[in-house]
């Protein structure tokens, strides 16, 4: 696959900040899929992908997924305050949403912060990169293995 193109640049390790698109584009990626066993709430499978064997400790992976799941559970939980927020928005003919931030958006901020922190502390030093699931439409958690080029499928 795309054999003619250059291999990914390995210099991403030292950098802080997200790797450039060009760097993540051509490396091998692992995708953690959604877990629908509890309905359509956002929850990711805690199943350790075999591709990450030897690159990442199982406990670290499970911790990341568990934390992310906890953030999304908090965002989607029907508490009194979220119901009040919804009712208020309805009573103001949804004009409230123009100026106020929703509970969900606040939780997504936390997720973004958590992902960034995890990248800096755990994933980057191991040559991995965790993509914020919101950027992938909450379908998958994408973990790029930066120093491993894509496997040719011939």
């Amino acid at each position, binding site marked *: 696959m795309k054999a003619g193109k250059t291999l990914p640049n390995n210099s991403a390790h030292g950098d802080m900040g997200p790797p450039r698109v060009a760097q993540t584009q051509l490396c091998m990626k692992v995708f953690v899929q959604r877990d629908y066993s509890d309905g359509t709430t956002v929850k990711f499978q805690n199943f350790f992908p075999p591709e990450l064997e030897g690159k990442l400790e199982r406990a670290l992976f499970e911790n990341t997924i568990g934390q992310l799941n906890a953030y999304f559970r908090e965002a989607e939980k029907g508490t009194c305050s979220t119901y009040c927020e*919804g009712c208020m928005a309805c009573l103001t003919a949804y004009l409230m949403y123009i100026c106020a931030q929703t509970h969900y958006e606040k939780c997504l901020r936390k997720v973004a912060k958590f992902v960034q922190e995890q990248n800096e502390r755990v994933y980057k030093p191991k040559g991995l990169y965790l993509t914020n699931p919101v950027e992938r439409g909450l379908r998958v958690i994408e973990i790029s293995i930066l120093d491993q080029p894509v496997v040719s499928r011939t």
Partner: protein
Amino acid sequence: MVSADTVYLPVSVDLPQEANHSHEKAKMTNVTRKWELFPGRNKFCCDGRIMMAPQTSVFFVTVGLIVGTCSLFFAFDCPFLAVRITPAIPVVGAVLFVFVMSSLLRTSFSDPGIIPRATPDEAAYIEKQIEVPNSTNSPTYRPPPRTKEITIRGQTVKLKYCFTCKIFRPPRASHCSLCDNCVERFDHHCPWVGNCVGKRNYRYFYMFIVSLAFLCVFILAGAVTHIILLAKEDRPYFEAVKESPASVIVALVCFFSVWSVMGLAGFHTYLTTSNQTTNEDIKGSFSSKRGQASYNPYSRGNICSNCCHILCGPSPPSLIDRRGMVPPEVWESLAKESTVISNNRTYGAVPHPPQPQVNGLPNQPDPKQAMPSDIRCQSSPQQVAGAVLCQPSAQEPGCVRPSVESPQEILLTPTDFIKNRPSDLRDAELDLDEVTNAVANLSASRLRLLQDTTMIESALDLDSLEESVSSIDTGSQAGLLKPKEFP
């Protein structure tokens, strides 16, 4: 099939010509925000703040009806009623009107819960997983499964693979064929509000319907009261009508719309209390079939919590980052690709035969002009059936290898183009995603025309039609994916 090329020539007229293309390229270089690259067919306004379905004419009819009727009511009935009964009437009317318009505009202009399409890597990962491992050795080729069974709270649910979005659709999601997106908790595509109704805007839609029902009743009552009070002033009924013709118009409009609006409000109240979508209700997803007990696994137990959660629960975020900036790397690569595409388009213009396969009528030059619209509507299911029949052999993005390795498999393909195209394209080593999309849009365009004339099917997104659209997409994609697999 040598002569086929001459038959296909008119098709290439539909392709973007050089002039169009240079325009397209000029647009490409100015891309700054992500909505400009959005792969669906939605319309965007105000630099991506507003998104709507591709066809919005009926939406303007809705707005016109509501605004027109209300202004007549406020201009002619309200002054009279405020003096004769109570000044609260115009106030209540105004509040209701603001609420109706606000929820209508929210429904129409917001993202219904579109699931962004898979990135190429993600799609490749999924397709690698659904590939049947030992299909190369087995004598009879079996297409890989396109559904995945999962269990949700003890209820088995089938997830379908969406060929357009390259994802396994989440439970309750469905692909809207008009907007060309997968929408989460898809309810239906509503032409009246000019948008899909899905997870993110269902609450607005519901409040719109309910408040519109109240507004209708309120205005009807006001207009009728006006006429009755006029008639009471010892004039004949006919005179009263003559004095206030606007009230009669308002009363008539409200009288005819109130029944359907109230019916719809009632129906959606039932759906909300049982936590179902219109799509699921029509398909009977949770009705017991073949003796198997079936229940709604998404219901939260009781009517109250269902309503609370759907109407006031946490509001999910939009997953398509419409207003996000396109990173410079992406549009640089896009600009590069677009020049390559131009070569490829002119190169591949003659053997562009997906259309005949779509319609199952290879010899008919242009069915959409040859047939009157009613015949078209009738014949579309058969054509669709044909397209579906072609599916197992025509679509195989994931199982490209077997079909090339064993020659009998190629013979199974209904047309030669799948076999021919890869050899054409194998020379050109490109990233073909853009081309794929372009071809897919073209090949499906005729079927879409058929669908657009038969609103009902597309509005409800019935499975057969949706499958057929996607099968066409992959029909053309299958051929294009091959060179990618063989560098």
